[in-house]
């Protein structure tokens, strides 16, 4: 059986065959045998060439998250949700910037008005979450095209707050 994965956004193709109690993996010309046991709902015990690993695996929507030796690895299928979005800003059409909420929270101040010119690093708005104020800043010089939120609004992550237009 063949699988295609993105592991931390890097493409891997692997083929898997059963060999007795173990699985035989072939990846990028090399092969290895893995003896894998499901220990509990989220824990796998894996032995590869005598080395033992305890992996924790969790599914989140279309992703799997594998935790191993103190690190998390994001496993995705190519083409699905492969774009990691952290909120903040997004370039759409040429010359336009969409400023979105970086996390769920409450808009406590909007520091700019529509039509206003803003400098790089100028604070556009302040969003409060978990009792800390987080300043949303402009990444470059621009003009405020439209404000899509108001003071006091509870916003979700990635909610559009402000549209900017770059100076020509």
């Amino acid at each position, binding site marked *: *059986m063949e*699988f295609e*994965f993105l*592991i*931390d956004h890097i493409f*891997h193709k*692997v083929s*898997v065959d059963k060999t007795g109690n173990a*699985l035989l*993996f072939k*990846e990028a010309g090399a092969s*290895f045998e*893995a003896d*894998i046991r*499901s220990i509990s*709902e*989220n824990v*796998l015990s*894996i032995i*590869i060439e005598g080395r033992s*690993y305890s*992996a*924790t*695996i*969790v*599914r*989140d*929507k*279309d992703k*799997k*998250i*594998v*935790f*191993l*030796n*103190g*690190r*998390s*690895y994001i*496993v995705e299928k190519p083409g699905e949700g492969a774009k990691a979005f*952290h*909120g903040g800003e997004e370039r759409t059409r040429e010359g336009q910037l969409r400023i979105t909420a*970086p*996390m*769920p*929270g409450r808009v*406590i101040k909007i520091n700019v008005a529509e039509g206003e010119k803003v400098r790089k690093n100028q604070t556009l708005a*302040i969003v*409060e*979450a*978990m*009792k*800390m*104020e*987080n300043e949303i800043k402009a990444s470059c010089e621009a003009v405020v095209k439209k404000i899509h939120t108001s003071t006091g609004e509870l916003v979700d992550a990635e909610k559009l707050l402000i549209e900017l237009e770059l100076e020509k």
Partner: protein
Amino acid sequence: MINKILIANRGEIAVRIIKACREMGIATVAVYSEADRDSLHVQLADEAVLIGPPPATDSYLNMGRIVQAAQAAHSQAIHPGYGFLAENADFARLCEKEGIIFIGPNSNALELVGDKVRARQTMEKAGISIIPGMKSIPKSVAECEAAARTIGYPVIVKASAGGGGKGMRIVGEENDLKPAVEAGMREAKSAFGDESVYLEKYLEEPRHVEFQVLADNFGHMVHLFERECSIQRRHQKIVEETPSPALDDGLRAKMGEAAKKAMQAADYNNAGTVEFLLDRNSNFYFLEVNARLQVEHPVTELVTGVDLVRQQIRIASGEKLSMAQNDLRQRGHAIECRIYAEDPANNFLPSAGKILFVKEPKGPGVRHDGGIYSGWDVPIYYDPILAKLIVWAENRDLACRRMTSALDDYAIIGIHTTIGFLKDIINHPEFRAGRTNTGFIKRYFESWGEKGKDPGMLRPVLAAAAFDELNPAAHVQGAESRPSRKERFSPWQSLGKWRIGGI
């Protein structure tokens, strides 16, 4: 004797207090906001009372509602934990008036030390050195500007009622003063319900060393040595340890005596902490009194063997201190790491959301104080602290190794946390050498990113992912993709080949 306590808090500290109460045979009452119905403290307490909507001002800061809940539940005492109402003298006074024991200092002492400006005046009079700064709450920004010119920049804006870095801003020049004072006032207002701020001279790169004190209601007082809390981000402590690598026995004794003198000057009782800044020449300055149980109290518990929550409850019950200063020794070394729901690779943005899975580290000398569990939704309304990982070992080097190993074993999946960041702090050569100060994070960790991953892990990760594809029913799934079909949990599907009675 107290036989029922209401805990006016949430999260890991409410859980910690409930556990102490259980061991003492004391019944517990949890209070919770609408956002916290599923929180761990509600599940662990004997009784639970809904006190209001999610914002803290309508729930955990609602004094009347909390006192009412205590009376309805017939609980003789309220433990305020830390944050929220813990250092609110009006609340302590309200409890006193209603005949409820407030597990903390008396309201007069609380009022004195809670008012950072009056506390500084009192300590100055008692002969304890203080940092230059404003001696009264300013009435205008202009007054701040004048004071800042006298004190000299850089100055720091501090919330009078505050703690935990809320409301604090460092200001390097006059142009930045007004917005900093305004932001400080807003943050102070939302965190403590009091917008008073004042200015102090900002010392560059001092160490933060604090002393734990216990005082009973009969004038007996001991200190339980220091905690070094120099590793801070945005004035919020993130790693604490004891003993401090900066103190020798002479300085320790001197600072311990100063801490007791400060608490005597304030007529303080119950548990409290005296914070000092220590400069490079071993000069120490009184910073403030934290009139509550501290987040970082476990490191003191591990090296002294004293359960501070139990002591707080005993003192509040009117018992005499059962220990003298000479009975107390520091044994071994303890370190605490605070686990926050923040994304250290993305400017420490708060990371609320569902915790899909938690695996807590275990082992000799490892303690985990947490308020989290697999499947819990972290609300956006409160402080982002999730848990504390505390280790004890024979010496500092072994404690660092134990902490690294425990952090490696600690999985919180589904939200961002500071675990990877903390691991790199503990392993930093300057930290390992004990050369810490409050500028440490800014200097060495300003633009932190998770280090490259071990390519040797690729094979087991691929193996795990492929195995999971081949055995789709074997694992618990994230909430959104959980199928509604009941058969998924049927033993006929999930057990595979099995035999009755092992025949």
